[in-house]
């Protein structure tokens, strides 16, 4: 489903190349649940952003559902991304000016989903995450865990094949974090959503089917659970 070959990302500092990602190759099959770990500055988030097409590698080849991403134009990339990928962030990144309902709805608007269908999808998602009662609240009126639930609901609303999560539990307490991880496992097992998460927590990493450790922009180790 996803293939990175010899991906590097560097910044030119004076005459030196400062590598953030240094020649990483990675294959991801559909239905996998991958946890990326590593110390601060090891390139975890950058790798995730490259996978999510928010960032571009300096060199290397990037294939996603058999499309050569490194050759696509911005528009095509955006189309691909809209169709297949959902993103969850550590800081939730909800739009403060929109209600819970509207936040969840927004991706559908960008994907031209028709009004009635869209309403049904959002209602379904609210129901599934048990946040129907919160739909007219603004993000600032929710707890962190609730905000992250909305964030995940928003990421899933367009039925992505891949869910990318950048420290999804980083701002949550352990109980809330556990609930989110249970949710991820369920999504992966029951709905077949491919999940790639960046995490600091060993415990959360073990929810995955594979753990990849990064160090200084390289893959230090990779183990299947």
């Amino acid at each position, binding site marked *: 489903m996803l293939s990175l070959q010899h991906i590097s990302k560097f910044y030119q500092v004076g005459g030196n190349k400062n590598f953030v990602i240094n020649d990483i190759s990675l294959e991801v099959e559909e239905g996998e649940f991958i946890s990326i770990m590593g110390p601060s500055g090891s390139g975890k988030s950058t790798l995730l*952003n490259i996978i999510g097409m*928010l*960032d571009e590698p300096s060199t290397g080849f990037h294939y996603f559902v058999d499309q050569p991403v490194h050759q696509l134009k911005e*528009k095509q990339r*955006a189309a691909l*991304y*809209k169709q297949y990928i959902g*993103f969850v*962030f550590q800081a939730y*990144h*909800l*739009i*403060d*000016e*929109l209600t819970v309902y*509207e936040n969840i709805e*927004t*991706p559908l*608007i*960008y*994907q*031209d*989903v*028709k*009004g009635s269908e869209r309403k049904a999808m959002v209602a379904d998602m609210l129901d599934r995450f048990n946040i129907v009662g919160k739909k007219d609240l603004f993000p600032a009126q929710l707890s962190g865990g609730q905000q992250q639930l909305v964030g995940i609901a*928003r990421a899933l609303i*367009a039925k992505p094949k891949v869910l990318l999560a950048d420290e999804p539990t980083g701002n949550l307490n352990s109980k809330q974090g556990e609930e989110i991880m249970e949710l991820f496992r369920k999504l992966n097992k029951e709905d077949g959503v491919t999940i790639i998460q960046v995490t600091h927590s060993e415990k959360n990493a073990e929810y995955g089917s594979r753990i990849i450790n990064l160090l200084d922009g390289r893959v230090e180790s990779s183990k299947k659970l």
Partner: protein
Amino acid sequence: MVWDLLVYKPNAIIMFKNYFKIAWRNIVRHKGYSIINISGLSVGIAACLLIFVVLQFEISFNTNFPGYKNIYHFVTSQMQDDGMAYNPGTSPPAIDALRNDFPQVKFAALNSNYGSQLTVGGANSTNSANDRKFTEKVGVFFMEPQFFDIFKTEWLSGNNAVLSQPNMVVIDKSTAIKYFGDWKEVVGKTLKMDNVLTLKVAGVIADAPSNSDFPLKVLVSYITWKQHPKDYGYANSWDNISSNNQIFVQLPANLSVENLTKKFVPFTKKYLEAKGGKTTRVHILQPLNELHFDTRVGNTLGDHLTSKSTLRTLSFIAILIIVMASINFINLSTAQSVGRSKEVGIRKVLGSSRKQLIIQVIGETALIVIFSIILAIGLAEIALPFLKNIANVPEDIGLFNMGSILFLLVTMVVVILLSGIYPALVVSGFKPVLAIKNKITAASIGGIPLRRALVVAQFAIAQLLIIGTLVAVNQMNFVNEADLGFNKNAVLILPGYTDSISLSKLDAFKQQLLQMPGVKGVSFSSDAPSSDNNWGQNFYYNHSDKEFTYPTFLKYGDADYFKTFGMKFAAGHGYEQSDTARAAVVNETFIHKLDIQKAEQAIGKDIKLGSGKWIPIVGVVKDFKTNSLRDAIKPIVITARKKVESQAAVKIETKNLKATVSDIQQTWEATYPEYAYNGYFLDENIAKFYQQENQLALVYKIFAIIAIFISWLGLYGLVSFMAVQRTKEVGVRKVLGASVFSIVFLFSKEFMILILISFVIAMPAAWYMMNKWLQNFAYRIPLTAGVFVLAIVTSSGIAWITVGYKAVKAALVNPVKSLRSE
């Protein structure tokens, strides 16, 4: 862009709804910025809307006549010492000569009367006190019937043929209602004019529109003028050129203006040089649609002319104001966009394209602009009744018509694009990864040089208008308080009439006035020392037949003229009371132009006016301002000529002024029952000379205040934003030991530099502009440094107060608080 969104995407409406929601919530959430944006913009648009209405009204002058592009005004010009002199009028024989020589062209002549009295007979025909008397400042003409062949006018009753007979009069509908109460039954009624003519009403025409220089109110047949040469100064001679006697021309399709104008050269030769003389007279054709703006020719038949430069100044100011308001917008929106970077980042991650983001930002701008325009319309409606103080617009001028609505739409689109595109490009260009992590800062979005340039532009405009205001207000104060060389205060002017009965009553009237306790002096004269009369005449000096290249100007007054107006003699004295010119008084300019050094040397010398008698100079008065302060002092001869001394000047004690004036009015009405009382104070009349300039000074004042307001808003917004952006920096500096003062200095330094730069731009522009304006006045204030210093002090002061307040607030925050959030 918007188009394909609407056409191809079913969700366009939903998307707009979503944007609208966000925009609205943003406006509400950032109340401060929104208020700054909306109030600045709406004040600016309201001001521009009003200016537009004025410009539209002025520019539309005389365009209501069908085929106006083919109608021309026959103008006489003459080469004089100081360049071409233009006269809107011509000589009475010209009309017949033109018809004779150019049969294929349509000509029509008229002679205008100013201040004529029309009398409607009362019930008792023997007692004229019961008559209803109307004095018409403008709008009374001796008119040829052919005029209406050229100027198509709606006839409510009768037709233009009635004007071919003597003693016939045509009036317009509103005059008919004013005089007779009903316009439908006026035909056949009698109207007396100046107690000289008895006229029969023979037709009624529709009212002239307010944007016409032809206020056709009372039209007496032209032939009536010819039949009363003495009463109305008709002389069938090529020597006279009267600005009142005007000719209008309609060209046939196959004749160009240039061709006809060329043929006027042999024409003038033929008629004027027939008697062996030489003439410098040249005739030109002035297009009807330029009549209203051509201040060279001047002397309109209507109530005002407007120079193109005034209109240009107004449009220029309007554009400056709109630009300033848009600058606020750009500055604040780009600054604010930093705070919105996160939202933009998220939207990009959720699948928004750049195009959609651009539309969103422009949409938000549009919302604010539309809101501002609605508010601006309200403001303009409130200000509309006061518009007549700064412009010559009719009382009932409306705000809405096709033109002004189009103007608002164009303004809307231009402002939206002007102030929306740049912020839209900046915002939509954010990199999502950076944006989401709040790594966008004011510095990283760039455009700081642009924002600095915009602030400079704004301050330059404000300073330009401040300087303009100071200069205009100073000049008008100077003009209003200038020493005119005579005393204009508490002098009541009673315009009179020169028919023989009126003249015979003068002496008795004067005696009656002098017996009133409040009256200090009475003089009869042709006009006041300062007036807009220009009665020029060629003259001879000291029994020489040498012709001078310039005429002298005449004022006629009785022996009390000098005392009544408090004029001072440089040498000699006034003359004895006389009915005709037996002695003359001249002014200093007159003798200086003759190269006489000392006033005494002129005393006893003889002068001759035109073909008159030689009379001695008995006095030289110190120079007084002969016209408005726009014009240099002219050489003047003052002498007696009872026949034209129709105007009474009454010098009044300032206490009990009101009672004295009402006594004078009663005496007038008793003495002249057949004439309406039209007394006015001289100083008020002199102030009217400067109506346009005073209006312009007021315009400058109003717009300088608006400009200061808008630039202050912009500065305030920008500084508030800076204060938020630099919270951390201020905190760190305070921890490192910075004082409050040093932090205030840090904030103000940049703005002071920007103000200095803007001053360097504004100063020469203002100097050029105001210097040019001052050239309108022969007597003017010098452009001193003080005005410029005051302008920069004012703008710096405003900046200091704004920046200082915010900076002190930022500096006083406990650093523990400001650094904790990091």
